[in-house]
């Protein structure tokens, strides 16, 4: 197994705020890696550093063996932003096709497939402006996966969607991972974190602890993952 995402002592400072503060991360191919942390803990900043939208204050990012920023590698990366970033006056289908084309081109079949996966086939022709929040979220996901990326970065993909859709999303994520796609998913929901292969606790730009959910819980001597997180945050472990 080789590292699909690797960061070395990564720092990103905005003035006095250390959004990412010496973070070293290594995610393997086919892994579903969860980043768990409260709002403002630096998860989004980290993801944006990974795709090269931000320049690190110091440290290195490498993606799929390529040191970032490297534009061409982004054709093999899928990115879903926290708020659905879509063209309101294009249809669902047009949005998906557009982002697919920007990532090096996709076939009609790929677009159909991506839309079917998020169960939007019957609304493919609707303007994004007219569809519900959950549908936007699904469209956003379809846009991120349409070009069949090897690495998928999802920034709080299940925020604000109903439990049923969330379950659909997760079964889809697992299928992607099974087919070799690497996923990095940020979340602040504990129950969701438990579904990841490996978890990283993030707080104030630092990686507090890393490992499978169960290991982290046992390691902290906690009854629940939530409790484990709090213990690590207080510095009570190790």
């Amino acid at each position, binding site marked *: 197994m080789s590292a699909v995402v690797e960061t070395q002592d990564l720092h990103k400072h905005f003035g006095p705020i250390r959004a990412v503060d010496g973070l070293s991360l290594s995610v393997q191919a086919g892994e579903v890696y969860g980043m768990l942390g409260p709002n403002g803990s630096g998860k989004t900043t980290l993801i*944006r550093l990974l*795709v*090269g*939208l*931000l320049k690190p204050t110091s440290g290195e990012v490498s993606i799929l063996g390529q040191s970032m920023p490297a*534009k*061409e*590698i*982004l*054709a093999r*990366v899928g*990115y879903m*932003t926290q*708020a*659905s*970033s*879509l*063209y*309101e006056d294009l249809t669902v289908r047009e949005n998906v096709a557009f*982002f697919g084309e*920007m*990532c*090096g081109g996709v076939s009609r079949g790929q677009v159909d497939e991506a839309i079917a996966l998020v169960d939007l086939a019957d609304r493919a022709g609707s303007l994004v402006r007219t569809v519900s929040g959950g549908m936007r979220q699904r469209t956003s996901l379809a*846009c991120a996966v349409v070009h069949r990326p090897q690495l998928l970065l999802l920034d709080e993909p299940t925020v604000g969607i109903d439990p049923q859709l969330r379950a659909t999303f997760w079964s889809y994520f697992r299928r992607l991972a099974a087919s070799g796609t690497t996923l990095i998913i940020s979340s602040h929901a504990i129950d969701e974190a438990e579904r990841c292969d490996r978890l990283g606790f993030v707080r104030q730009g630092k990686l507090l602890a890393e490992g499978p959910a169960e290991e982290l819980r046992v390691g902290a001597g906690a009854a629940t993952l939530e409790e484990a997180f709090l213990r690590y945050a207080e510095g009570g472990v190790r």
Partner: protein
Amino acid sequence: MNVRRVLVLARRVIRQVLRDRRTVGLLFLAPMLVLALGAILFRADPVRFPLGVVNEDLGSPTLAGKMVLADGIVEEMGAGDTFDLVTLAPTEIEDRLRDGTVQAVLVFPEGFSAGFLANRQAELDLRLEGSNPTRSMAIRARVTEAAMKSLAGLLAGGMGVSGAAQAGSGASSLPVTVKASYLFAGEEFDTMDFVAPVYIGFLALFFVFLLTCVSFLRERSLGTMERLLATPARRVEIVLGYMGGLGLFALVQVGVILFFTVWVLKIHYLGSLGLVFLVIALLAVVGVSLGILASTFARNEFQVVQFIPIIIIPQALLGGLFWAVEEMPGYLQPFAYMMPITYANWALRDVMLKGWGLAEIWPNLLILLGFAALLIALGSLTMRREVA
């Protein structure tokens, strides 16, 4: 009605506006800037027109001795602050008018004095450059005025031409007529014909600028720019893509405006409409790049609107729309030279009023292309700021 609610709402609005410092600043500065520019331009001292004189008048013997009436007229014209006189040889007339070193040439033939004394009628042969109808009219009026004054003084002095004096005092004016000929444009061209070429260009620039600015801003506020930049798309590709898309609308718009001005408003023009279209298309490209660059510095649609008084109106005032750049106060001219629209205006007027072709206007087109390239580069560079 609940007054308290109204007051609370008013307080909230005030707080929001105050928080947008740029808006507050512009609220006061922008009108002052625009007013000051207007004041400077309206109050600017009229420039002196370079006027060529070809004086071949041999004069005519009178009771008081030999008189050369042309000399008197020339002296009168040189005395005011309207003209800078340049003595020319007859062979130079067309070249000097063409290269713009004189705006008009007044020609006195050998028999000017003799003709006046014999017919009591002076016909001034005025050759005008013609491409600025307003200026042509002003020159024509001032030349006539100077000639009348000079001849009136002569007659009032009673220097042996009393017959003419009687004839003159009876009539409302002295018998001075101007026979004007035009190198460019012509007598039928009016101020609208002078303004129209530039108007077309300005409108194209204005709308394309706004359209681009707002589309780009929307791309940013909806987060799609962030998504776009996380694809292999390079910034310069994004800029060029916008140019291709919005440029198409700009071209259609230009076509419609041209059709309207030429066939509906029936303005007079010379030269090729194809070339006019090319110049305006170039200006539209500049407009798109300027819009992209500007949108980087706007946080919301409101701030885009604020670009109108600080970017668009100065271009209208200083770019030669109503006032020719050469006639502006010297310290304003460098600003005119910094604006792409100035070069488009020169090219458009050269084509539509002088009938010039690509061979003559290419330097201006080249400068416009340079502006477009520079703005595209700057727009791509500043796009880093897009991602907030």
